[in-house]
């Protein structure tokens, strides 16, 4: 192949030269070039190595169909993998690197692998690297293959924009069909959005320069796009609609090529018209993957768009009529052209023609030398341009749930009409001639094909005859260039009974990865059909998956990075805690103080836990759920929601209870306050608020009269500041001197409301405690008052870590930490409602199953061990020789500063009857002994609650 730049033609600016590098070598091109055209213009033909055999590969296509020229690009210090040279505009100082090649595509040190090709057929990896383990081999194999390398240091310079759009009509593709459709619809008053993957409108008109309505194609396209905008339509260039999803949501990627991250568009259209065109497919013959063998249409595109001639002695091999324009254009550009046409009735004028002939081999040595026909002819050639027919781009149609029909006259699958919101037109629907494409576009817009201005000269009809792969022949014939799949691989798959097209795909990798079968699918299906002895239509197709073209992860992420990635919930007092020296961690989706102070975590946490038991501690419990339940049926509702009886709860009182799921396992725990007969407040776990609120509303709507019960999550409205410890009553009295705090007047598990403050006597530490609920905006003032009034009492600040120790000392649980997906309330020592509650409640039935009644269930116990605390997650095991069997696991484990020893909670099989038993606890190869004890390790009589 001796491709070269012509001194005329193409849409390039020859006055400006752009320097770039490929595999370390310096080259140049012009504005208007792609990387591919610039390389071809300078005679660079080997641009990649194949993924498995490391065979040299050249540029095959001219746009998104390109299977070989996939580069890693470095531009302005940013490395981007998986960039197609055919769709990447040339820019100054761009540096491109071939893939699957070390050190370069031209001189790959792994080229020897092709000599061993017979030993590495399809599924070689699956069969060979099973023993001793695939992961032993994986790193080296991955090093040898792949479509580029991600740069671990890469950080997008800005967040990619993601935009939503709506329209009456979304037209995908600005070729003749798409433009005609869009303009006709806009003229009828529809809100039209036209997206197209190229920088300028026209689609293949820019490749062929064919006239439309007596105007040169590109000029007609620009004029039509301008008319569309004038009619109120919108046009997005360089934008690929790469996938269609539920409810006709179309995702499109808009490229900017100026360093700005690509924009992701989410388009919701009332109707979608797909005018995505068609892709030329290769012919199969031995060594059809050699550099210098190129799509005939691609050669036409390079000539007309970039002024690049594919060769001087060109053989055009075809089975269809679409190459006539290619031949005329190449000859006009000065090339010597010979046609090898498999059709017996092929005709041409003034061009050497070999009818009823096919290519059966090529001579290639660092470039194409000769091609051989099955008629025994050998033809000198430096470029072999092939056309095996056209494959409509049906990806979006199929993603939308559309079916396909096989057309023998086109040798292609075309979309079956009938989708409610999506119509396919133009070449994507099998309308391959200009007239057909324009007419189908207009019809889809509800326009009349006869309304075309000026009219076009009628295009010659498209004719194609089969030239499918010949099975069993010599040499390797490539079906899928990108995944290195040959006809032999398909034959092997069939011999091993992988005859379903989906199995074939997975066995051979045919049509996988970014190629998604653009050039390979029909040839692969035809090969399988021949092996099965069935028509292609009965073989079917594989699934067309989005994205149609590679889309950057940055584009999918959008602004969801940094602090916008999974944003955490923030406390109203967060800045106060920062000033107080809090060290924060994330708990259940909230950023909360773990502990306060500058010492080590262990020191400060132990100090806080000790101080809370000795005096009074102040804790920010604002994330605790505050879900209000209102209405005449609220009492009946909470009695059904809770495992415990709640109907008897009096106004002003509080009760602890569990919520179960329908399987009887514990969903959440917490306290319920009854404000008045028709008003309750559920105080659920901090991290479960959203889930509990959703669960409550589900039962409200499904099981009750939703007009008599109402649920409102008011968690964000209220801050909750907690005082705990023996001096908590004293501190509360100092701040609220008007309150009667005697235990008879303000008993444990009751609350008082005054003004906009609600004070509840509940405890998660086992000590006397008060939870003060105030509006969030008042929290800072109250925090300051409590701290100030507590100075004389030695008030300390309490973080989550110390609180966890305090509650564990009392054997109080945290849902999700001390329970698992099988824990039922009687496993936690709360068996009375199960035995005595008469009314219905969620999960009741499940509490009486055989499984729920097993005597050897895992139940909550305490564990005592000497030395360091046991590891949370460690398993209690039985040992039988070399075998260990789990009998449960440690759920919480701490060093208790108040007991002066480690404490632990565990879920242990049949644990309640094993109190006093010594068990073995295994963790990371170490086995320790521990004693099974009751969960409550401190103040089992509960005297401290009123202490």
């Amino acid at each position, binding site marked *: 192949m001796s491709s070269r730049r012509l001194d005329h033609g193409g849409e390039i600016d020859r006055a400006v030269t752009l320097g770039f590098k490929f595999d370390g070598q310096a080259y140049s091109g012009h504005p208007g070039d792609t990387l591919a055209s610039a390389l071809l213009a300078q005679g660079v033909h080997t641009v990649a190595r194949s993924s498995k055999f490391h065979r040299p590969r050249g540029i095959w296509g001219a746009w998104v169909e390109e299977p070989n020229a996939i580069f890693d690009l470095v531009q302005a210090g940013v490395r981007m993998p998986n960039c197609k040279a055919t769709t990447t505009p040339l820019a100054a100082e761009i540096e491109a690197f071939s893939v699957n090649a070390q050190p370069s595509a031209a001189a790959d040190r792994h080229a020897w692998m092709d000599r061993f090709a017979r030993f590495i057929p399809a599924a070689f990896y699956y069969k060979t690297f099973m023993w001793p383990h695939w992961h032993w081999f994986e790193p080296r194999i991955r090093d040898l293959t792949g479509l580029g390398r991600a740069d671990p240091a890469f950080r997008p310079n800005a967040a990619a924009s993601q935009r*939503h759009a709506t329209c009456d009509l979304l037209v995908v593709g600005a070729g003749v069909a798409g433009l005609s459709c869009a303009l006709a619809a806009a003229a009828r008053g529809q809100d039209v959005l036209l997206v197209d993957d190229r920088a300028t409108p026209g689609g293949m008109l820019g490749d062929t320069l064919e006239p439309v309505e007596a105007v040169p194609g590109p000029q007609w396209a620009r004029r039509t796009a301008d008319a569309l905008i004038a009619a109120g339509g919108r046009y997005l260039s360089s934008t690929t609609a790469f996938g269609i999803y539920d409810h006709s949501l179309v995702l499109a990627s808009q490229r900017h090529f100026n360093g700005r991250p690509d924009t992701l568009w989410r388009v919701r259209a009332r109707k979608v018209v797909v005018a995505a065109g068609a892709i030329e497919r290769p012919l199969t013959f031995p060594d059809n993957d050699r550099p210098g063998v190129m799509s005939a249409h691609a050669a036409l595109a390079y000539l007309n768009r970039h002024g690049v001639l594919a060769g001087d002695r060109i053989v055009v091999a075809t089975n269809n009529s679409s190459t006539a324009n290619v031949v005329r254009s190449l000859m006009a550009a000065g090339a010597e052209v010979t046609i090898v046409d498999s059709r017996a009735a092929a005709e041409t004028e003034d061009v050497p023609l070999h009818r009823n002939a096919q290519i059966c081999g090529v001579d290639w040595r660092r470039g194409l030398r000769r091609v051989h026909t099955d008629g025994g002819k050998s033809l000198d050639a430096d470029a072999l341009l092939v056309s095996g027919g056209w494959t409509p781009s049906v990806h979006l149609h199929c993603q939308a749930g559309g079916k396909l029909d096989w057309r023998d006259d086109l040798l292609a699958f075309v979309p079956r009409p009938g989708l409610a919101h999506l119509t396919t037109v133009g070449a994507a629907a099998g309308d391959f001639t200009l007239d057909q494409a324009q007419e189908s576009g207009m019809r889809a817009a509800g326009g009349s094909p006869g309304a075309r201005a000026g009219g076009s000269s009628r295009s010659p009809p498209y004719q194609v005859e089969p030239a499918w792969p010949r099975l069993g022949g010599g040499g390797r014939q490539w079906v899928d260039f990108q995944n290195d799949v040959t006809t032999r691989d398909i034959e092997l798959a069939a011999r091993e009974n992988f005859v379903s097209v989906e199995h074939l795909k997975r066995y051979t990798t045919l049509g996988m990865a970014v190629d998604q079968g653009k050039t390979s699918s029909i040839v692969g299906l035809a090969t399988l059909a021949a092996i099965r002895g069935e028509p292609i239509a009965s073989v079917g197709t594989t699934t067309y998956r989005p994205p149609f073209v590679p889309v950057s992860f940055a584009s999918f992420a959008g602004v969801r990075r940094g602090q916008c990635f999974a944003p955490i919930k923030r406390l109203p007092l967060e800045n106060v805690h920062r000033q107080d020296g809090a*060290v924060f961690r994330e708990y259940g989706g909230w950023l909360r103080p773990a502990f306060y102070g500058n010492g080590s975590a262990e020191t400060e946490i132990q100090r806080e836990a000790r101080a809370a038991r000795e005096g009074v501690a102040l804790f920010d419990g604002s994330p605790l759920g505050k879900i209000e339940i209102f209405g005449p049926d609220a009492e009946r509702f909470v009695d059904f929601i809770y495992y415990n009886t709640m109907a008897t709860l009096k106004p002003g009182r509080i009760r602890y209870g569990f919520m179960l799921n329908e399987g009887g396992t514990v969903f959440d725990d917490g306290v319920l306050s009854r404000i008045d007969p028709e008003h309750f407040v559920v105080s659920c776990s901090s991290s479960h608020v959203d889930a509990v609120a959703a669960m409550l509303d589900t039962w409200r709507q499904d099981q009750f009269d939703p007009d008599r019960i109402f649920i409102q999550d008011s968690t964000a409205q209220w801050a909750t500041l907690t005082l705990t410890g023996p001096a908590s009553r004293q501190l509360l009295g100092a701040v609220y001197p008007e309150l009667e705090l005697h235990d008879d007047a303000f008993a444990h598990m009751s609350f008082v409301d005054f003004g906009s403050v609600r004070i509840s006597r509940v405890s998660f530490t086992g000590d006397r405690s008060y939870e003060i609920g105030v509006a969030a905006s008042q929290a800072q003032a109250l925090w300051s008052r409590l701290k100030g009034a507590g100075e004389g009492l030695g008030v300390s600040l309490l973080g989550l870590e110390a609180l966890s120790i305090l509650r564990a000392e009392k054997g109080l649980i945290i849902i999700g930490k001390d329970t698992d997906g099988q824990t039922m309330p009687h496993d936690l020592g709360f068996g009375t409602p199960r035995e005595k509650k008469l009314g219905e409640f969620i999960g009741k039935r499940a509490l009486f199953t055989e499984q729920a009644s097993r005597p050897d269930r895992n139940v909550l116990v305490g564990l005592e061990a000497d030395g360091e605390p046991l590891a949370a997650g460690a398993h209690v095991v039985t040992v039988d020789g070399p075998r260990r069997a789990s009998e449960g696991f440690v759920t919480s484990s701490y060093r208790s500063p108040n007991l002066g020893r480690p404490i632990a909670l565990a879920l242990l099989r049949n644990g309640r009857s094993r109190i006093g038993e010594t068990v073995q606890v295994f963790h990371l190869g170490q086995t320790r002994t521990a004693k099974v004890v009751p969960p409550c390790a401190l103040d089992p009589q509960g005297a401290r609650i009123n202490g």
Partner: protein
Amino acid sequence: MAEKHAPGTTAAMATPGYDFASNWNPVPLWASIHIEVGGLSVSTCCVPQVSVVNGNLQAALDAAAINSSPVGWPELASGDSYAVRLARDRAVVVGGKALRPGWHAEGFAVSLSDDAGVVFGISGSGLEQLLSLGAAVFIDRPSASASRLFAGLPVILYRHGHETAVRLHVARPRAAAMLEWLTISLAQLR
């Protein structure tokens, strides 16, 4: 408490003394937020009296002396007293006669919500583009409910005052995340 790893890395965050606060900007003073980019401005609004009512909405609005119907999208709320519909039987009431929190015999419940959220006022040219970055919010796609997911967060969004102005209610715990999103998105519109 010396950090042995780079802040924000997984290894650093696994150390017991690592302060996760370094991953997040401090919560701003909400009263002072004002960002202006081009002709588009974002400010926090002082909305002194906000309640959520559940149940018989008409009875609640009558009690609150709100004369207009609750707005959805893209209806226009105006003034200091109005209601915004969230669901068939749920609305936010702004201003009007103060309602006692709790259950009312007329068949509605009132929950205080003055402090539950931060209200952003967004107005100016480019508003539609900004909204299109956050959700499929379009004038020609109406919704009876003003409650929606915007920028990945649950919000209440409605037009207020004039056609190029909206109010965006965000739950207070998530307001910092919304401000971060607005700041980045406004920069994208430059």
